[in-house]
């Protein structure tokens, strides 16, 4: 297994950890720090009152803490309905994306009449499109206006991902397929039973990429959604940010005379929307390490 092999290699090396190791870890640690600090600052902004933040935008330790921003986010019903919409769009949409992409990438990696034409036709759409108005009219004609499907179906395949995926399939030895064929399996079976498990790291990568794009998506919701109860999370957040000059207190906060503050709310909202992804990500990450049996893929 890959892990054991790699661990074995590492173990034999441990005794000769050298300067290069130190340099690499040092460089990466510095990079992580550069990332962590502004991030830490984001968290601080979400828990400090406005005046503290404006007067000292970059702080190490907050002088004063407040839960106002998070309270605003949690008391905002629209954020929760938006989150439910976004969860559905993300799960269904990512599934739709990855199935379409994997199937097409696999099929485009083989030769048969018409393939070149298909590749050309697909690449053409990467560079040329009909524009906003025809797309809007199409969504209306398909009866998708103001439905979740208007946020799911129109973005099916990211052509860059398709091409990279196809490239990756190309590196898988053909013998595997051929031997399966001799055993009587058809192409679809081969794809799902033999090729996909081998390509799991790449599939997981694109599940992550597609999933996060879906999670962050607002533009189609802005265009096609006509009722507030179906607005995706990021659209609601954008509206909060756009309205930040007239930021509003929820009812209970108004009564208590608490003034919420726009930047704090923005940051709190960012943290709330990031959390689900950050929790899921490590689970996905393990597929990068343990997905493969040694020797399955040629270098």
């Amino acid at each position, binding site marked *: 297994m890959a892990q054991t092999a790699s661990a074995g290699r590492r173990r034999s090396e441990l005794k000769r950890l050298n300067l290069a190791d130190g340099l690499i870890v040092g460089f990466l640690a510095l990079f992580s720090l550069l990332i962590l600090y502004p991030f830490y600052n984001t968290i601080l902004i979400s828990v400090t009152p406005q005046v503290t933040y404006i007067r000292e935008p970059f702080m190490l330790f907050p002088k004063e803490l407040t839960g106002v921003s998070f309270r605003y986010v949690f008391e905002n019903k629209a954020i929760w309905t938006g989150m439910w919409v976004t969860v559905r769009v993300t799960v*269904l949409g990512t599934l739709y994306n990855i199935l379409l992409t994997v199937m097409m990438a696999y099929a485009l990696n083989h030769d048969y009449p018409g393939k070149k034409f298909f590749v050309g036709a697909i690449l053409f759409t990467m560079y040329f499109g009909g524009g906003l108005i025809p797309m809007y009219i199409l969504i209306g004609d398909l009866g998708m206006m103001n439905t*979740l499907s208007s946020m799911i179906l129109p973005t099916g395949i990211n052509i860059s991902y398709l091409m990279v995926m196809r490239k990756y399939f190309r590196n898988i030895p053909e013998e595997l397929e051929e031997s399966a064929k001799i055993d009587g399996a058809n192409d679809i079976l081969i794809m799902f039973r*033999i090729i996909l*498990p081998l390509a799991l790291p790449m599939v997981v990568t694109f599940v992550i990429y597609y999933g996060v794009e879906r999670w962050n998506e607002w533009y189609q919701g802005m*265009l096609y959604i006509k009722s*507030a109860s179906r*607005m995706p999370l990021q659209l609601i957040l954008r509206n909060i940010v756009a309205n930040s*000059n007239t930021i509003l207190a929820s009812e209970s906060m108004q009564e208590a005379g608490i003034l919420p503050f726009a930047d704090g709310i923005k940051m709190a909202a960012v943290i709330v929307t990031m959390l689900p992804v950050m929790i899921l990500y490590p689970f996905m990450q393990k597929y990068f390490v343990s997905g493969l049996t040694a020797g399955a893929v040629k270098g």
Partner: protein
Amino acid sequence: MTSKRACRLLGLILTLSLLLAGCQAPSGAPESGTAAPTAGAATPEPNTNGSEASADALAEHLTLTANVRNAEVQGADALWDYFAEKFNVTIELIPMSFNERHEKARIWVSSGDMPDLLWMDLDEKMFAEYANWVRQGMFKAYPADIAEKYPNIGTEYGLEVNVGDELMTIDGALYAHPAIRGNPEYDFMSGMSWVYRRDWAKAVGLYKEGDLYTWDEFVALNEAFVKQDPGGNGPGKTIGMGTEIFYFPHAFGIYQTSAEFGYGSFSPKDGKYVWTTARHETLEGLKIAKDLYDRGIIWPDNPLGQAPDDQFKAGLMGSDFNNFDQGRLDSCRKALQENFPEIDPFEAMDYAFVVGPDGTLWCKQSQCYWGAVCMSAKLSDEKAARWLTMLDWMLSDEGKYFRMYGIPGKDYSIENGSLTCLWPQSEIYADLQADPYPQNVRQWYMDYSGGVSAQVVPNVSTPKQTIADANAKFQYLKDKGFMRAFDYASSYLSAPSKDASGNFTTETSDKMIELLTTVSADQLETEWTNWLASMEEKVQPVLDELNSMIADVPTEAAPKVFVP
């Protein structure tokens, strides 16, 4: 082993997705049918009595779609139910964020999918598009006898300072209802003005009685703020003057000297329109601003477009030039009080009246309306009549009480002709009441029918001192200042070159910001003149249109020297 795991993963995903798809279906289906059954509905009697709509006219339940900001907080409250019941109507609110207001209106109209009632930020920049759409038949005309049929709308259109309905009239018919601003009594004067830290002025010993300053005094004051740091913010932290990015850098000398802002981009000179940017007053003002910027009196980060009010509220800024109506003044004072419990915000912060470098005191008129409502060409007569009935009522006294306070008997009462608000006591201010409804819950009424003058419905949730200060400012400027009337003729002219190039305001302020921040003071004039010359090719055709198409160019108002 791995393939098994993949299969399991796939199975899990499929089950989950089926589950979620199941949730999606019911929520997708029912709300899609929007059209109310209209079969057999007779054309309603024209209601002769405006706001007192006859029961007949309201007998049929109608559904209207309408776009609005902050839709997520509206449509589910006691006010909304009251209104819906009163007019036997369901209004389906279509959400639209403020940032995308133009984009959405364009997409809707262009793809033939506009709501029954389309609210637009129909300013002079959008006007050419509006006129175009009218001529292409996208909108339904408001009835010709609207003023007679709907007395409250008629009253509003009859106001001498309100020219909105005339502006919106295209080829003899009205296609948009302009929602007028709430201060006709001050001739729609804009709230743009300086506020400053009076306590700091006293601390540096440069305070002037009545908050009245000459230009040099005000500059010296702000320089002292930056240098002496009366707020104790630490070295390099205190900001002198700042403004909203929209007014940058005009607030710092240009607004006070040239005719720039009031007349829009084009101003009359010797009986002809000229490009205000190219007038020498503009350059003079720009030089003043450059000097202030180089001396560090202007907020150095101002061009980045962040909110100056935040700096002011945090006690970092001495003077803030912004649209300071009573709402903004109130929010700044509240924040100061919360952030600095030891100071009295009513004492520490107030308007400053600043006389310009040439000895004139300017104020500015706004357009008489903000936003306008168009009706879809596909809208039925019954629905149009229902909308007008609602609008007429919203503009009546009763409608104004409703819009500002709420439901009669619950939120306000009228006894012996005097209006009393029944809102609960405020917890912050002893003599004030608190609005029991969530904020923005009134957005639709306000955007669709306009502002309400505080003289008709008093504001009971803002401190009396703040209201008094804001009114006193308007009154003082009306009496003593010099109002730049809004020039509708040149702003709204629609002609090929002008529609194509716009009014050059953005190009102008972009260039000003660039020169202010990136060239040295002695290069300023050369660079500016070169740029003006390079723009001539585009500006001249527009000027030619203005001068040939506008019959009587207004006479240039000679600046009058301010007398306290």
